């Protein structure tokens, strides 16, 4: 004979158990991380990875009862084909809830249709081509669009540096073309004129920049705006600039901060002095959050190592993911999860950042810096700041941007 008490106890047990099981299932969120762990982008992947891990280490308690399980996949080279396969497998085989990473724009571009179909949020930690966020409502970006730095640099070059003519050298792939368009728009809107546009090879290998820079030098512009992918390309650029004696010829080298990436800049030596860049982050930024960030970084990864903009993007991206997990209580449902990100604000080492509720792209400060030599070390001197910069491509609806 079943007493009421016995029935109640059984019911409670079932509810408690299923509640526990449901809760347990909702506790762990699987995040697929697609980064170029091997090949030419391996160092960049490492910086982003370290930034992500550092956030989890310092602020793991923000997750509360939830856990984040990182499943890492190698996107290998910048062509996008491997990234697409990785995303497809992460979704169908590993059944991830969120996708993140994406250093190269082709990787993100190729994966966009997959996340739309599967309704999985995709948090981009680098890929900078402006119109990427238009490709899918599931895409949000915490890193940058080429237009953040490009437009700002063009504006600054014409208005403050008083440059009248510019030559643009760019690596020939979507972010490069984007950077060119951004700079040109900003520069010419402020009264300058771009007199030559030079495509400079592919991102997969570092070319000999001599012929391209020679052509630029012969045009005698006031400034040479260069965009190349972060990493070894940037080093070669600085060296070639020095080797061809372009500074002496009166041509200033400017560009987005990709070319003065913190992990490479010291190898430039004296070739880098005087280089002016616009970017959302460099390790020398003077704000409390960054001081803490850099200190924690050096403690975790060695006194000789330094974070860079990739690292802070990994850090911010993980903060965004954690926010999403907590806001959605561990159950990531495509559209609702994306809503949780819209308008999200965060006090990042790079300064205050926000995810634009309409474009899902990042809004952040752009810092103008000039490289100078102090105590035998290259140091980014802050010479200006533009606050709360939006992606001007989407603002102006230029080209493919909507």
């Amino acid at each position: 004979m079943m007493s009421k008490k016995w029935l109640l106890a059984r019911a409670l047990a079932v509810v408690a158990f299923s509640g526990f099981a449901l809760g347990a299932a909702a506790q762990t969120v699987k995040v697929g991380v697609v980064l170029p762990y091997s090949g030419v982008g391996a160092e960049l992947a490492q910086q982003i990875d370290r930034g992500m891990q550092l956030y989890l280490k310092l602020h793991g308690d923000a997750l509360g009862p939830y856990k984040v399980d990182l499943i890492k996949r190698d996107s290998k080279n910048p062509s996008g084909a491997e990234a697409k396969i990785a995303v497809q497998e992460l979704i169908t085989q590993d059944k991830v809830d969120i996708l993140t990473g994406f250093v190269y724009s082709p990787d993100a571009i190729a994966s966009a249709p997959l996340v739309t179909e599967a309704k999985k949020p995709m948090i981009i930690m680098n890929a900078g081509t402006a119109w990427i966020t238009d490709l899918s409502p599931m895409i949000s970006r915490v890193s940058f669009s080429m237009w953040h730095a490009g437009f700002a640099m063009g504006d600054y070059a014409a208005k403050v540096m008083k440059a009248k003519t510019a030559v643009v050298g760019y690596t020939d792939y979507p972010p490069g073309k984007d950077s060119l368009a951004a700079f040109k728009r900003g520069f010419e809107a402020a009264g300058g004129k771009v007199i030559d546009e030079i495509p400079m090879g592919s991102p997969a290998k570092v070319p000999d920049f001599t012929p391209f820079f020679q052509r630029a030098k012969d045009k005698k512009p006031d400034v040479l705006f260069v965009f190349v992918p972060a990493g070894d390309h940037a080093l070669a650029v600085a060296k070639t600039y020095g080797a061809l004696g372009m500074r002496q010829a009166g041509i200033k080298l400017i560009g987005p901060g990709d070319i003065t990436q913190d992990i490479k800049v010291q190898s430039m030596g004296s070739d880098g002095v005087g280089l002016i860049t616009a970017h959302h982050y460099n390790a020398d930024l003077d704000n409390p959050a960054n001081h803490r960030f850099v200190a924690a970084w050096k403690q975790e990864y060695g006194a000789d190592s330094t974070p860079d903009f990739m690292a802070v993007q990994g850090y911010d991206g993980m903060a965004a993911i954690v926010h999403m997990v907590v806001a959605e209580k561990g159950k990531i449902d495509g559209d609702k999860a994306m809503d949780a990100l819209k308008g999200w604000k965060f006090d990042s080492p790079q300064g205050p950042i926000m995810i634009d509720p309409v474009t899902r792209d990042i809004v952040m400060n752009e810092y103008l810096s000039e490289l100078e030599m102090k105590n035998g070390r290259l140091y980014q001197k802050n010479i200006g700041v533009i606050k709360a910069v939006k992606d001007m491509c989407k603002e102006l609806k230029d080209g493919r941007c909507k």
Partner: protein
Amino acid sequence: MDLISILLGGLTSGMVLFIVSVGLSVTMGLMGFVNLAHGGFAMLGGYVIVLSMDKWGVPFLPAIAIGFAAVAAMSILLERLFYARLYRATELDQVLFTIGLVFVMISSVTLVVGPETQTLRLPDWLRGQTDLGFIKYRSYSLAIIAAGTALVLALWLGFERTRFGAKIRAAVDNRRMAESVGVDVGRLFTVTFAVGSGLAAIGGGLGAEILGLDPQYPLRYLVYFLIVVAVGGLGRVTGVFFAALLIGLLDFVLKIEFPKGGALFIYALTLGLLLWRPQGLFGRRGG
């Protein structure tokens, strides 16, 4: 467009191509062996040179000597152990073996050193620019041009004026005859292979700023080395020299005029050239 700058820039690339490829040309002409791993020797040499300067503070010129010696020694080992077994084998087996070897080289370097591009730390006397009177040009490039010219002269003298050189030329033209007059072709080849690989090592190191230096180097430039050798004519040092300069110059100019895919013209030119003269511009027919 400043013609002299273009000329010097093209000459620099060409010289690097020459220094790397001359060894390949002679060994391919001598033994008819398809050595697709030649670029791997260049890469390894480059790494030895760059790393001995970076990690052990070895000065520039001794580092180059070390690179040469290390790679030459390694190639002697490989030649005696493996290459010698495949001299009579089909192209397929030679291709297979050397591709396998190149993979081993690439992955070893990636594992031991890492995938990043290596930069050559130039000594102070090679930095900056040199004033030649009519133009100021990058000292490093001028040094490469000088080195290449010295090399071709030395090799030419060696081939034309020494006994050893005569033996090589004889073996390239007609191996059987050379053997029958008492030339020890096996030993000849080992020595030539060692020197050729050693030269490639120097080319790999010196050219680190021009062609870059990273684990993918051997496969990326394989086609260029083969083109230079095929167009120049197997076993012809002067042929390789002019072919390398031609290709280097063309490539440099095309990068300026047609940065997107301009190299296409080089391949088209090579196709045309080899179909018209399969033995190369300077090669001997039937060789």
